[in-house]
Every structure is written in C-alpha cells, then in structure tokens.
C-alpha cells in the first residue's frame, strides 16, 4: 500500500474538521467506517487517498433513536448490529445479506451506502468515468453484471444492499460537512450517471453520511428484501428487490418497491407501486407487477438475463409478503 496518514477521531465534528484541514493542505481524504472496502481499494491502487480518517471510535453516530414519528439510525452502526436491531425486515434482511459475519462485524451503514461500484473495469484500474476518466468500458465489453436501468454514459450497478432498502422505506440521508448537517432525500442523494458519471452520490468533498432518518413504520406495514446472488453468500446482488407495503386486510394500501443490482441508482418502480394500490396480491396481480417492472429495462449485449430475473424477483418478493 502507498503510505498514507491515519487520523483517529472521536466525533463527527472532529472528522469534518480533520477532512477540511487535510484538503486545505492539498491532501485527498477518505473516511473509513469498517474500512474493509477502503483498504481493498488502497491496496489495489484504485483509491489513492493521502489521509484516512478513522471513524471507529466516534461516539454518538451509531445509535438508533426514535422521536415523533421518525427513527434515526447513526451511520456508524455496524451491519451486524443493524441486522439484529429489530427494525423493519427489509432493512435488517438487507444488512444481514451483506458479505460475511467478519465483514458485518466492522462494516457500517454509511460505508455500505457510499461504497464505490464493483464493476470489474473500475476495480481493475481501468481509467473509466468512475476513476475520473471519460469512457465506460462495459458498453462494448463484458457487461454481464451491468445496469439494465438508468445506464449511460456509465453502466455500473449501484453496489449497496442497504440503499434500496432505505429508499423503499422513504429514508432521508443525513449528511454532515463543514456547513453543518443537512437532510437529503433518496432522489437527491443518489446520482445518476447522466447527471455526473464520476460519482454515485451527492456527497461533496469533506462531507460524510452520518445517519439516516426513517418514518416510523405504520402498524400495518410489512417489508421484505429479496436478494439473488451468484453463490449463496459473500457476493453483491445480481438482482435485489426491497419492498415495503402497507396492507388493509388483503388489499394493498401503499407500496414502495426499489430494485438493487440492476440499476445505476436504487431503482424505484413507481408504475408498479401505483398499479398495486387497491389490489390484492393474487397470482395474476403479482405476475403483472413483474411484467410492469421490466417494461422499461434496457439490457446491454450480455446482461439480458437480468431482465427475466428481475420480473421473477419482483413477483417472488410480493408473494413472500402476501404469504406473510
């Protein structure tokens, strides 16, 4: 690994000012929660940060608290803690599906939501959009794992499991920076390549994700995270579905369905959501939902398999919720 300077901080304020200080010295900065992915990138040379700000000892940013209809989750909560938190199923299941126990013991919510893409071009050091270059090698190359929604000019799939779950829950993303804290909704937090192909989220330099805020789930709310992987564990989603429904008996009152593993950002299925409202989750309805989900899919030369997988995954997620 190249030499870098590690700074241990014990508060978010300290983290932000350390980052600001380093930047003003002309140094590049990375925030580190669990650090698993960051270290990998530093070793591979796809991250060349001069300064690493270690957030492991930060207090006050890993707790879960509820007040007046919202639940705030500190961004430095580990995935293991989150998976055992008793919060919404879609969120705990998504957290439990990441990596392995060793990874979940240190990896954080913030780190998972803001991880860089796992595209094999980017991670193998190609000078693509994600590395600050000006092309996407997957377009005419090996794109088996790339996006069927929202692609162009980059076609990476958003790598996070928590992101679609949080988006489905209507979470807002709490960002801390030199100018203080601000709340950002999912639409504004996640950035499509058509807006800026170099980034996946709207964090500015010196800013970090310090938490999320969710509306406390309604009593009649059910949720589920369905993840399809190429082996039984330790892999990013080929396709995933985060679904939150509120039910009135057997009728869907509201639906929030967000895809992972297939799009450049967490992909909300607004047409499917509208379709389901007022309907029962019968086999026909569920099948139609699956079809509607893929109506807008635009496969590349080698990822057409993601299309039937997506409709199957949407159907199965809804069936899982229907059967309780």
């Amino acid at each position, binding site marked *: 690994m190249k030499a*870098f300077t590690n700074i241990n901080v014990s508060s978010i304020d300290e983290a932000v000012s350390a980052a600001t200080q380093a930047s003003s010295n002309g140094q590049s900065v990375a925030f580190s929660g669990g650090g698993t992915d960051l*270290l990998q990138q530093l070793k591979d040379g796809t991250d060349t940060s001069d300064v690493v700000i270690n957030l492991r000892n930060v207090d006050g940013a890993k707790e879960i608290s509820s007040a007046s209809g919202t639940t705030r989750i500190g961004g430095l909560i580990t995935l293991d803690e989150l998976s055992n938190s008793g919060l919404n199923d879609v969120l705990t299941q998504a957290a439990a599906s990441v*990596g392995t*126990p*060793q990874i979940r013991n240190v990896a954080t919510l913030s780190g998972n939501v803001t991880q860089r893409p796992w595209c094999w071009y980017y991670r193998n050091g190609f000078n693509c959009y994600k590395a600050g270059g000006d092309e996407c090698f997957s377009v005419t190359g090996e794109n088996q794992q790339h996006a069927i929604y929202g692609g162009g000019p980059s076609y990476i799939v958003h790598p996070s499991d928590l992101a679609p779950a949080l988006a489905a829950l209507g979470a807002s993303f709490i960002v801390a920076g030199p100018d203080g804290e601000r709340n950002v909704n999912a639409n504004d937090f996640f950035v499509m390549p058509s807006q800026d192909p170099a980034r996946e989220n709207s964090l500015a330099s010196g800013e970090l994700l310090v938490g999320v805020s969710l509306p406390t789930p309604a009593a009649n709310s059910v949720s589920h995270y369905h993840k399809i992987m190429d082996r039984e564990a330790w892999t990013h989603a080929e396709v995933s579905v985060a679904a939150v429904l509120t039910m009135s008996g057997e009728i869907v009152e509201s639906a929030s369905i967000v895809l992972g593993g297939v799009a450049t950002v967490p992909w909300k299925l607004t047409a499917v959501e509208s379709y389901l409202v007022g309907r029962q989750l019968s086999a026909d309805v569920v099948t139609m939902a699956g079809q509607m989900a893929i109506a807008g899919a635009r496969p590349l030369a080698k990822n057409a398999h993601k299309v039937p997988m997506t409709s199957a995954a949407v159907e199965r997620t809804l069936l899982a919720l229907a059967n309780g």
Partner: protein
Amino acid sequence: MGDKNKADTSLNPKQRSRREFLESAGTTAALASAVPVLGISTAQAQSDIESTAAKTRIQLTVNGSRHSVDVEDRWTLVEVLRDQLDLTGTKIGCDRSECGACTVIMNGKPVYSCSQLAVWADGAQVTTVEGLASGGQLSPVQQAFVENNGPQCGFCTPGQLMTATALLSNNATPNADEVKQALVGNLCRCSNYNAIVEAVVMAGERSGSAV
C-alpha cells in the same frame, strides 16, 4: 466388512502422546518440529535494518499478553501479528477480505485481520489460533478438528477455528446450518467443508457451554 466407525481410536496413539507432551510442557511450550529452526527472535534480527517511516505506538493484548508495538499507519493487524509478534498461525490468503484465512477474534468478534489497520486496533483484545489451547490442552473445537480431519492442507484452518470458537461462545450447540451460516466467511479450497462443519457440530455436542 470392517467397522470403520471407531470413535475411540480416532485420536491415534501418536496424537495422544503428543497431547501429553503439550500438557506436561505447559502453555509456553516451544515444541520440537522436524524442521531445524534457523530463525532468531524478530527484535534482534530486524533492529539494524528497519525503515525510517513515521510510526505510532499502539497497545495490543494478544492471547492475554500485552504488547506495545510501533507501527506504520499502513500496516495491517495481520502484518503486525505475524511479523512483529511472531504469531504466524494467522495466515494471509488474499489480503482482500475474500477468503477468511486471516480471521482473528477482536474484541469478542471474528474479523478479517488483513482489513484492520493496526492503528485502528489500538487497545484491542485479540485472540489468535495460538491462544486457543490452554494449559497444554487443545480446545474442544481444536480437538474435534484433529479427530475429524478438519485440516487438509491446513491453511484455512486457523481462520475456521477462530470463527468457530466465536460461534461456540455465543451458541454452544449449533446445528450444521448454524455452523455454515457462521463460518460462511471462511473459504476452504481443499473444499473440506463437510468435515469442518461436522467437527464444529461435534465440538458443540461434546462440550455444551465450555469453549
């Protein structure tokens, strides 16, 4: 047709006498091995040829012993354990959190030591494979690995043992599915998975709550 299922002889007599040697020698036994030991202790060997990069002093408690080590920011915990503390039982298989060979127990939880910077582990309690046997006695899961052919090439074995040890301290009698879930972050290319799972289940069945 022979009876192959002789659980009582599965610890062969040579292993029994080996265990007795361990018991009599105590926890700090320097055990004879077939390979002549040419190395000398790290501190003496390296003192004249160290790099001049900036270092931070950290404290680590490893297998119950306190250590003060001067480390570069970029050194990983596994490098420090192996190179500075001479605890080479923990292996580096990939250095990328993709294989699990470097698993240690840090502050009670199994983690990939290749992906912890030493400076992040300042003040931590760490257990490595060298810390499992106690008073010359193998731990129940080590013993089960010996009997059920847990190690083939043996390279993933320390990592598997550490994760299994952490599991057994939280769930004393796991079934095979629970073992697989807990150990999923430890690969074995010899693909000795079935024997490893059997051994961990067996260790749980035997020892109940003891680890």
